[in-house]
Every structure is written in C-alpha cells, then in structure tokens.
C-alpha cells in the first residue's frame, strides 16, 4: 500500500520513483549499459561514463564516453575508466592507462567538446579514485587514492598561453589527510573538503583540508554511505544507499533456511544531506532498480544514474530539481 501511495504521488518512471516534492526535469536514456560510475559537467550539458568493451565478459578496462545532453551526440574519450570533469570548466582528468597505479592526464575539451587534447600528466598523483576541485583562486586541486592510508594531492594551474601546467611543488610527493585512513575519497567542488569512509569509525565523514594538507573531521554522517558528492558551495552532500525495497518485510528474522531473494528486494536510493542542519532528504523511493552516484550541477540540480532491474528498460540519467 505504501508503495502504491508513493507511486501515485510521485513522478514515476517505471519502478524508479522520484519523491513528489522534487521535480524530474529530464531523463536521458542510453542504449549501452555503462558502469555505475558517471560524472556530470557542472553546466548539466554533458555526461561522462564508461562502457565495457564486451558487455558479457567482465573486464576492468572499458571505453569512456562523453554525451552531449542537449544534442544526444556521443563521443569517445581517452582512458580506460573514470573520466572526470574539472567541475564546470572545459577540462577533464582521466587515468592514463588501465592500471591502479596510473597517472592522471589533463585534457582540454575542444570542438564543442567533441574531442579532447592531451596536455600532460599531473606529476606525483597516482592511483585510483581521482577527484578534482577548483579553488577560490582558480587553481585546480587533484587527489587520488594509493591506499586507505595514502592519498596524494597536487595543486596546479593551467596556463592557457603556453598550454602547460604550473604545478605547486611539482617535484614532491604530497599527501592529504595523512592522519586518517579513508576509503572512497571525494573532493568537494571548491577543493576545500574531502568526504570518505573513516576506516576506524566505519562511518562516512567530511574533513576540512588544512593548509598543510592535514585534515580535520568536521562532520560525521553517522552511517556508511555510497560515495558522497558535494554541491558547488559545499552546503549539501548527496549519496546513494541500498536498503530493502518497500515490498519486503525487513523485520522478518534472518535464519539459516534458504531464502530466495528477488533481485529487486534491495535497491539503491538517493539522499541529500544539508551540512548545516544535518537534515537528510530522500530523493527517490524505488521499488526496483538502483539509482546511484548522484552529483550536483552548479545551479543545484541533482543528477544520478539508474540501472533498472528490468533489463528491457534502458539505463538512464535523471536530472532533478530539489525542493
């Protein structure tokens, strides 16, 4: 009954349900089945994602894509995975090879973002899970994870005249949050904060990055979530969380008998947290299908990917206006 009520009240797209106080502005479907990870350009006009080379054969290395939301034009980007926009600029940072100790290449997008020009790799940042912010002075800040204990950081600028990077302490390894062990790190859009799972507390937290790159924990989210993304003024964060869908009785006792669980029983939904009030707002209430890896555009729209349970339906990216 609750599911039915929510379905009637909300803007329903199949079993993906946006809760009624929010507005589904646009849903962009694609034919491929990309990986869960994607990024939205801060303008909201472009999406980047990765597709496996062979959809039936699991492999790490895929093909990166850039989708123009307005024209539906899809271009190929370099790199094996994780094509990341530098917020809403004309730049991207992408791993240089299919290796977990890869470097990260800095690209300009050209020809109305239909192609890219490689400039150079950012020195002394290697690993995985790169994220980038643009600081108040216009410089870029890149971090990546080498291990839960070691995250590298580099601040740099791009000189448009010479097309070269001007890198702060270009010959040194620098580490961020050396005083914490963190998984799933994500830099805020302004480069001043880091979100991640604190290995010791086992909860997602937000850290302020100090001038010496040490970190001070400022918010404990209280639970462990999926990767946390910040909005453009760092007043809100968004994440996904799996939980039981409405149909199952979560109070039923766990026992040792074989319990066949329909694939849609645990679903991922989207949440937004106001960092000032700590209020958590659910955005979706899916009955099946998984909505994942939400992120913000500069103007505050929320964008997330949904993998429907019914594989006859297409993977889509939802653009939502929050109330």
């Amino acid at each position: 009954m609750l599911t039915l009520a929510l379905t009637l009240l909300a803007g329903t797209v199949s079993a993906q349900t946006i809760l009624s106080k929010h507005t589904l502005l646009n849903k962009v479907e694609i034919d491929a089945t990309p990986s869960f990870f994607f990024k939205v350009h801060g303008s909201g006009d472009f999406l980047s994602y990765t597709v496996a080379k062979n959809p039936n054969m699991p492999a790490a290395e895929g093909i990166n894509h850039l989708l123009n939301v307005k024209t539906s034009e899809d271009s190929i980007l370099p790199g094996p995975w994780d094509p990341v926009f530098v917020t809403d600029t004309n730049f991207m940072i992408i791993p240089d090879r299919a290796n977990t100790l890869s470097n990260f290449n800095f690209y300009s997008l050209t020809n109305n973002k239909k192609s890219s020009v490689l400039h150079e790799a950012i020195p002394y940042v290697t690993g995985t899970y790169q994220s980038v912010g643009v600081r108040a002075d216009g410089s870029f800040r890149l971090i990546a994870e080498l291990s839960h204990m070691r995250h590298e950081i580099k601040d740099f600028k791009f000189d448009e005249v010479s097309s070269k990077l001007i890198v702060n302490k270009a010959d040194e390894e620098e580490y961020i949050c050396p005083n914490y062990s963190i998984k799933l790190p994500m830099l805020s859009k302004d480069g001043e904060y880091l979100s991640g799972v604190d290995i010791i507390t086992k909860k997602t937290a937000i850290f302020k990055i100090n001038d010496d790159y040490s970190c001070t924990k400022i918010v404990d989210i209280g639970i462990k979530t999926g990767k946390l993304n910040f909005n453009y003024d760092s007043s809100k964060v968004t994440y996904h969380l799996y939980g039981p869908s409405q149909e199952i009785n979560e109070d039923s006792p766990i026992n040792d008998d074989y319990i066949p669980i329909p694939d849609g029983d645990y679903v991922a939904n989207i949440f937004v947290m106001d960092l000032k009030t700590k209020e958590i707002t659910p955005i979706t209430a899916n009955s099946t299908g998984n909505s994942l890896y939400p992120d913000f555009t500069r103007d505050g729209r929320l964008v997330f990917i949904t993998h429907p349970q019914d594989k006859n339906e297409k993977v889509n990216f939802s653009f939502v206006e929050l109330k």
Partner: protein
Amino acid sequence: MKLTKLSSLAATFVLLLSTLAFAQVTDRSLNKFMQDNQKGIIYVWSPYMPLSVLGRQEIIQIAKDLNLPVLLTIDPSARGIQTEDQKLESRILMRSGVLDHFPATLLFENGKLRDDVLIHGYENQIPLTKLIQDYFEGRL
C-alpha cells in the same frame, strides 16, 4: 529393482536440488561456508564497477598468500555475465551494507562474519594484504 531405481532417482533429485539451492550465495550457503572454513575472506564485485573486476584476481592471490579461503560473489543486479562466481542473495550480507560500493571485502572468523570489517573500494594488493592481516592479528 524398482526400489533401487526410485532411490537412485531420489538421490539424483536431492543432489540436483542441493546444487540449485547453492547456485547463489544465500544466507544458508554463506553460513555453511563460514562454518566449514572458520576463517577467511568474502569478496563482492560487480561487472559495473571496473576496479572491482580488477580486484577479483588480486583477492584470489591475497587469499592464496595468506592461506585463507575466499568466497567470491557477484552483484545481484548483474545480468548475462560469464562468470563462475555465485550471485549474491544473502540478506545477511546485504544488510551489512555490501552493495553500497563494489568491491566490498569482508572477513569472517570463528565461523562468523566480522561485523567490524567491511572494506569498500579497490585497494592495491600490498596494502590490502596488510589491512587483512592487521584485522586478523588484532591491530585494527
């Protein structure tokens, strides 16, 4: 003769049923695996998270290096994927939050899941080996 044939058929049916019952990682099969092995690793991966695919081969090596059994299980939303790994259906694991990011690495000890260990995200082989050792040797 008739009885023997029926017994044989029944035995085949039971064997087939038990095979089907463990075609997925269920609460039951998870508990059995943990009870049978007492101490080891559980690795949950997804074809839709590339680094978890990469980590799958590495966790096999880590388990070998540490002389531990490893249970490999795949994202329940995966479809049409060629793999010998069983699909995750265990509510015990789902309730523990494994689905929120792939890979998810868990440990079990004394036949039970360690509820203090859920490592989300890819970790290179050397630091992950150390992390697992730290957990099992009480340093974390």
